[in-house]
């Protein structure tokens, strides 16, 4: 398939002293794809994501994100991606509209674009009545939806989601994935990590990292076939159990 590549890495590596956190990983992600980036705690996912977001310089290997080089063009990468994690997303002591305004500004939207986008967003998320509410007072599920919407407010080429759904109830978790589907349908590439293996099934393709290397990368149904597994949980277990390094 001749699709546009939004992420391309070749032998991407990061070492800290004698420790190789990310060990020669090579993979590609297509435009509009939902790509699941899985691995046990300590497998090297966070280090890899930090390199892809232009926050950490690799030790060796190459990577291009949204068409830009991670070594030389990290500033341009940051302007063309969105990022959301459970730990860092919104400012709790700012109101809903202030958060939208802040992130719109950071991502380089004009005042007029921010005004239009704010209305659209509040409407879409059914948050109109909460416009002036402090974010810390919102239920977790609403915060997550707002955080995601803010992370894609500038319609980036790609959005990185680092365990976006931890702790929420089952219905909210699924509603959140519907937002992901909608963004992917608009052409935004989704790069997502999760510890919920049912969510791995919602991805077009998933990779599984073990001890800094990508040990498997394919469509969930193909991986399940390959590992003679009924569920992605079993695939993950078969691979991650082999990990040798102490988390």
């Amino acid at each position, binding site marked *: 398939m001749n699709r546009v590549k939004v992420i391309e890495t070749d032998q991407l590596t990061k070492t800290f002293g004698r420790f190789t956190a990310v060990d020669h990983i090579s993979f590609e992600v297509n435009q509009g794809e939902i790509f699941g980036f899985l691995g046990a705690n*300590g497998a090297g996912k966070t280090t890899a994501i930090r390199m892809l977001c232009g926050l950490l310089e690799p030790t060796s290997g190459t990577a291009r994100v949204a068409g830009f080089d991670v070594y030389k063009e990290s500033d341009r990468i940051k302007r063309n991606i969105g990022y959301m994690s459970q730990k860092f997303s919104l400012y709790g002591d700012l109101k809903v509209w202030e958060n939208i305004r802040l992130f719109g500004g950071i991502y380089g939207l004009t005042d007029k674009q921010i005004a239009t986008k704010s209305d659209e967003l509040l409407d879409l998320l059914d948050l109109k009545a909460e416009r002036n509410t402090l974010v810390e007072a919102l239920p977790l599920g609403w915060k997550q939806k707002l955080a995601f919407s803010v992370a894609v407010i500038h319609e980036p080429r790609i959005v990185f989601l680092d365990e976006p759904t931890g702790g929420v109830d089952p*219905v*909210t978790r699924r509603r959140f994935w519907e937002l992901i589907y909608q963004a992917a*349908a608009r052409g935004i590439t989704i790069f997502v990590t999760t510890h919920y293996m049912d969510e791995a099934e919602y991805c077009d393709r998933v990779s599984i990292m073990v001890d800094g290397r990508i040990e498997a990368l394919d469509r969930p149904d193909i991986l399940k076939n390959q590992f003679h597994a009924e569920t992605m949980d079993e695939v993950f277990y078969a691979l991650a159990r082999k990990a040798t390094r*102490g988390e």
Partner: protein
Amino acid sequence: MNNGIRIQQISKSYGSVQALEALSIDIAPGELFGLIGPDGAGKTTLFRILVTLLLADAGSATVCGLDVVRDYKALRQRIGYMPGRFSLYQDLTVEENLNFFATLFKTSLQENYALIRDIYERLEPFKHRKAGKLSGGMKQKLALCCALIHKPDVLFLDEPTTGVDPVSRVEFWDMLERLRNQGITILVSTPYMDEAARCNRIALMREGRCLSIDTPEHIRQAFSDVLIAVHGTPMYPLLLELRRYPGVHSCFSFGDAHHLTISQSQAQAQGTATFIEKLKIRLTEQGFSDISIKTIPPGIEDCFMALEEQPAGI
């Protein structure tokens, strides 16, 4: 051993937010009991009340027969608590943390070593590392060791597996089972529904209330709707189509299939087989491929979602 937990009509609010609402649960000695529910269910508030760190507005509770308010000093000697947030000393090493907690309880690492041996063996290679520099999985193991060091009769674990990968979660639950087999009562909370199956009994909690308290098996048996798994390509349009389909009560994604429910009365009127047959024809007409439709037994997550829909208080 009299190491049960009795919670009677406990209520607690923070300002206008009702965190717990007249909650009552009886936990038997030696039980591995799970509090299952999302953020905001009131799990942490309940823990803090039971470990004598927070006063309830109303109601009473005993642990090991000791009142959580009146007998708090005696009670603290009998329980181990692992809070949801990592709260060991980050600038002390693994070994220093363990020795510190052992000293607080006037014991030593050696005295109850048998209890923590299989957990501590995993930590030992890192014993000179500062706690703040440990990975998430290792912090979790250290926190569990510290909570066990004085050989408590009851163990309180607040979301010990949140953010932990599936393999480490399975290992953690294996450890809990071994502790339970030594007679320790364990109250553990989790947002992961699949962990419910590892508990003797569970309480499904939401917004300060219990939706249901029973064994995981009984909770599954009490599921009253007919549950059908539907797979087809493409999956997201299929989800939207299923939600529009007449007779469908609810429909959500569950990994590689969507789970839809039809009410018992609907199923009786039409017959589940007929419903499935008609649905298959309809989906084929709509252009979906790889269609598979079958009735399945509910999991705990299906049960939680069904209970959540009901008006509170039932």
